[in-house]
C-alpha cells in the first residue's frame, strides 16, 4: 500500500498529462465554445461585455481546472472538511455583509469577481459528505448518529442559503448532499419515509415560502394566469423554444431573444436562446455533450480505487445532472422558475468556478485513480 502510495506520488508531470481524461476535457472545451457563441448571440451579435467577461472566466477557470487536476486526490480528501467549513464561513459572511440585489443577499464583492458562496457550497457539500461516508464504516451508515451528522452537514448550509433567500440553489445543495447519503448506503426506506414526510409537510413548507416564491409556484401551475406579469418568463421561454423547431431559426436569428422578449437570457434562460437558434437538433447535440461529460465522470468514479473519489465523482455527476435537469425543466415549463444556472453555459462566475473546480477534482481522481486513501 505504501508502495502504491509512493508510486502514485512519483507520477511525473508528463505522466499526469498523459493520464488526463481527454474526452472529458474536449467535451468541456466544446461546451465552452458553444457557450461563448451563445453569449455572443445574447450580446446581439457583437462582442460586448457579457461575451468578453464570459471568455475571460472560461480561460481562467479552465486553467484552474487543469491546475486542480494536477494535485493528488489525497490532498482534496484531506482538505474536504476545511473547504466545507470555509464555505460555511463565507455563507455566514454573506448573511451579514453580502451584496444585496433585488431583495436577495447572495454575493460577496471581491472586486475582480462577485462571488456567490452558495454556488461553491454545491461542491463543498459533496466533498464534505464524500469524505464523511468514505470514513464511515458501512455498517454504521444507518446508525442514528451518522444520519444526524450527515443531515446536519446538509441542513446548515441549506438554511443559510434559504435565508438569503435562494430556493433554487438550496434545493440543488440538498439534492447534491442527499445523493451522497444514498450512495453511502443509507437505507432505501429512510428515503421513502422522508419523501412521504416531505409530501405531507409540503403545505406547511409552502406556508413558510415568501410571497414571490408562492407566486412562482402558482405561475408554474398556470402560466397564463398573468401573462404579462409572473407568467411572462415561462410563456416567452416556451414560445422561443417551440418556435425554434427542428433546425432552429439560425445563429443570431432568434427573434425572441434578439427583440428582448426573453428575460434573463444570459443566465437562467440561456438554453432557451440556444434552443431557439439551433432548434431540436442543436438541443439534442447539447444534451449529448452533457451526457458524455456525465458518463465520463461516472466512469472515472467507477475506476477509482478510493471510495472518496468514487463518492465524489458519482455525487458530482449526479449534481451536474440535477443542475441540467432543473434548469431545462424550468425553461421548458416543467418546473417552477427557481433560478438555477445551466453549468458552463450560463453567464455567472461562481457557478462556472464551482463547476470547474468539480471537474478539476474529478480529473485529479482520474489521474490518481489507483490511489488508495486510508
Amino acid at each position: 500500500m505504501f508502495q502504491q502510495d509512493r508510486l502514485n506520488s512519483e507520477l511525473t508531470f508528463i505522466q499526469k498529462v498523459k493520464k488526463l481524461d481527454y474526452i472529458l476535457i474536449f467535451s468541456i472545451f466544446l461546451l465552452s465554445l458553444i457557450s461563448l457563441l451563445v453569449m455572443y448571440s445574447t450580446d446581439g451579435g457583437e462582442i460586448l461585455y457579457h461575451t468578453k467577461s464570459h471568455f475571460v472566466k472560461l480561460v481562467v477557470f479552465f486553467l484552474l481546472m487543469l491546475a486542480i487536476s494536477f494535485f493528488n486526490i489525497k490532498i482534496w480528501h484531506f482538505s474536504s472538511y476545511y473547504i466545507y467549513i470555509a464555505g460555511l464561513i463565507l455563507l455566514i459572511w454573506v448573511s451579514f455583509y453580502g451584496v444585496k440585489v433585488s431583495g436577495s443577499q447572495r454575493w460577496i464583492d471581491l472586486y475582480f469577481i462577485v462571488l456567490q458562496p452558495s454556488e461553491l457550497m454545491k461542491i463543498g457539500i459533496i466533498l464534505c459528505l464524500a469524505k464523511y461516508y468514505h470514513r464511515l464504516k458501512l455498517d454504521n451508515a444507518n446508525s442514528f448518529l451518522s444520519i444526524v451528522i450527515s443531515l446536519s452537514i446538509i441542513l446548515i448550509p441549506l438554511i443559510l442559503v434559504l435565508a438569503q433567500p435562494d430556493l433554487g440553489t438550496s434545493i440543488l445543495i440538498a439534492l447534491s448532499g442527499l445523493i451522497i447519503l444514498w450512495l453511502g448506503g443509507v437505507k432505501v426506506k429512510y428515503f421513502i419515509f422522508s419523501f412521504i414526510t416531505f409530501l405531507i409537510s409540503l403545505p406547511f413548507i409552502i406556508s413558510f415560502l415568501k410571497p414571490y416564491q408562492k407566486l412562482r409556484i402558482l405561475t408554474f401551475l398556470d402560466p397564463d394566469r398573468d401573462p404579462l406579469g409572473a407568467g411572462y418568463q415561462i410563456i416567452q421561454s416556451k414560445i422561443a423554444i417551440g418556435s425554434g423547431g427542428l433546425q432552429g431559426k439560425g445563429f443570431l436569428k432568434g427573434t425572441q431573444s434578439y427583440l428582448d422578449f426573453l428575460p434573463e437570457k444570459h443566465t437562467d434562460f440561456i438554453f432557451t436562446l440556444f434552443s431557439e437558434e439551433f432548434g431540436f437538433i442543436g438541443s439534442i447535440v447539447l444534451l449529448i455533450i452533457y451526457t458524455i461529460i456525465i458518463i465520463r465522470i461516472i466512469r472515472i468514479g467507477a475506476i477509482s480505487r478510493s471510495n472518496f473519489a468514487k463518492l465524489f465523482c458519482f455525487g458530482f455527476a449526479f449534481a451536474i445532472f440535477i443542475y441540467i435537469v432543473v434548469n431545462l425543466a424550468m425553461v421548458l415549463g416543467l418546473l417552477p422558475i427557481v433560478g438555477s444556472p445551466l453549468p458552463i453555459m450560463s453567464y455567472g462566475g461562481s457557478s462556472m468556478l464551482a463547476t470547474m473546480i468539480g471537474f478539476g477534482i474529478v480529473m485529479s481522481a482520474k489521474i490518481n485513480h489507483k490511489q488508495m486513501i486510508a
Partner: protein
Amino acid sequence: MIKENTNIRKADVINRRMFIISAAKIIVFAGIIGRLFSLQINENKKYLTLSDKNRIREWKLPPTRGNIVDYFGNIIAGNLKVYQLHIIPEQVENFNYLISRLKTLLQLSNKRIDKIIKLKKKLKPWDSIIVSENLSWSEFLKINNYLYDLAGVKPVMTISRNYPFKDAYTHVLGYVSQPNEQEILDNETVQQRFVPGMKIGKLGLEKTLENHLIGTNAIQRYEVNAYGKRINQLEHQKGEQGSKIRLTVDTEIQKECGKLLDGKAGSISIMDVYTGDIIAMYSSPSYDPNLFLFGISQEEWQLIRNNPLKPLINKTISGLYSPGSTIKPIVALSALENNVIDTKFKVKCTGKMELYGQTFHCWKEKGHGWVSLKNAMKQSCDTYFYEVSRLLGVDRLNITAEKFGLGKKVLDQYFDNEKKGLFPNTKWKKNNLGKGWVLGETLITGIGQGYTQTTPLQLCMMTAQIANGGYAIKPKIIVDSNPISYEDAKQSMNSQLLFNSESKLLGDKKLFKDKKNIKIIQEAMFSSTNERFGTSYKSRIDDPKYQFAGKTGTAQVKRISKRERELDLELEQIPYKDRDHALYVAYGPYINPRYALSIIVEHGGSGSKTAAPIAKKLFKLIIDRHDLRNKQPNFERINI
C-alpha cells in the same frame, strides 16, 4: 484485509446504487427530450405563430378614398397631396428649443403648442406627433430649409380629400372629417379600417356611400421589440383605393345653378325625364366643404351656422315648401282623369269665391272672367282651381299627387336627410290632427297651399313625369352598373310597353288612364309659358330647339291679411321673412321633351318674376349640353 474487504463491500454498494440512479437519470433525460420534442416538433407551428405575433406588428395606414366624378368624368371629390409636419420625440435633442423654433417658423398658436406638449406626454417616444396637418407649400419649403436645425422633425407627404369645385356640390357630396367615437362604432367597415387621422363622410353621398368610397388600408409590417419599438420594416402591403363613383350630374350646369342662385336662398333641380338622371341639384346658399377637412375654425363655423339663409340645409331634398300654383297641373290632370271636368268646362272668376261664408281670393283681384282649363293654367287662375278641386275632392286629388311622387322620398337610398313631405287627404287629417276635413281646405289644397308640403326635387320629378308622357321614373344620381339609355327609356314609354318588375325598366309604369289628358296638361303648361298672358310668357324662348313649357308658383308663407291685400306692397317693402316663395317648374324642349326642372327661390316674391327667368337662362345651357351628354359613353359602370 478486513478493511480491504469492507472497502470493497462499500464500493459495491456505491456502484450498485449508482447504477440505480443512472437508470433514473436516463428516464428523466428521456422526459426532457420528450418535452423538447413536443414543443419544438409537435407544437412548432403554434409557437412559431406566437413568436411572430410577438415580433410582428402591423401598422394600418389610412385608406385612400375613391374619387367621385361627374357624368363627364371630371373629378368632383378627389384626393390631393398635402404636406404635413410630424415630430418624432425620441429623435429630438431639445424639445423646448424645437417647439420655439417651430412656433416662429409656422406661427403656431399657444393653444396648438399646449396640445402638442400634451400629446407628447401621452404617446410613446417613437410615435410621431402631428404638428400640422396641412402645411402650405411655402411653409413646407421653409421647414425643409431649416431641417438641419430641427432634429426630430419629419416633413411628410400624405393624401387628403379635396373638393375642386368647392361649394358647387356641397349638398350633394357632403364632406369628410374626423369621425367621433360613435360614428366609428356605428359603421363596421369604418371600425375595421379606422386609423388615427382617417376621415369619414359626415354628410351627403360621402356618408351614404362610405363603404364604397372608403378603400382598404395599406398595411406596413414592422418587427418590434418587447417594448413595442419598431426595429425593421418587413413588408408593405398596398391598400386599394375606394370605388370610383360616377354621378349623373353635369358640373357645368351645377355651377350655373350656383351662379343663378347666388345671394339667394333656394334650390334648383334638373332631371332627365326619361332616365331619371339628376343633371343638377343645387341648394343655395352653399359653403366650401374643404373647410371641414382639417377642422373648421370656430369663426368660419359660426359664419355658416348663423347665416340667415341657412346654408346647412339641403333645400332640394330637406326643404319643405307649399307648391303653390305649380301643383295646378296635377289638380287639372286629376280632374280630367276622374272625368270631373273636360276641356270645355268653364268657371267664371270674379276675383274671389265664397264658400260657407268664407272668401277665397284669386291672385287677380279683378278676376279672370270665364276661364277654361287652358286659360286657367295659363293665367294661373285660382278661382278655377278652387272650383275644380271642390268638384274633385281632396282624396281623389291625393291619389293622383302621390302617383306622381308627392309625399314620398325621391332619393331615399342616397340621402339620409331627405324629407318626404306631405300631400293631405281626409284620412290623414283624421289620423294626424284628429279633426274632420273641411271643404275649404280642399280649395286651398287645389292651389298648392294648406297642408301640402313638397321638396323641390319632388316637384321636379312630378314635372318630369308629366313631360315624358305620364310614366313613372326612378330618379337617380349615380350611374349604376345597368344604366337605362335615354333612347331605351323613351322608346319603351312611347310604345306604351309596360315592363314587369323583372325587366330592365324597373318601376316604369303608366301614371294615367288616358294619354290625351297628359297631352292636355302639357299643352296648358306650354301656353302658360309661350302664349300671351301666360304667367311666364316673359321668360319664354321662341326657338323651338330650346322652347320649354312650365308653370309658375307663388307660395305664401303666411296668411295675407285684408289690409295687406289692399296695400298690395312691392316686394322690397315686405319684410324678407314674410315674402312669398317663388317657384317654377318646367320641361323642355317642348317638342320631344328631355329635361325637367324645378326652381325655388325662398322669399323671392312671385314665381313669374323671380323663378321663371332663371329657367330661361338654364334651358339654353341644358339643351346645348344635351348632345355632349348623349355622346358621353358609359365609360365606366360601377356597381353600387
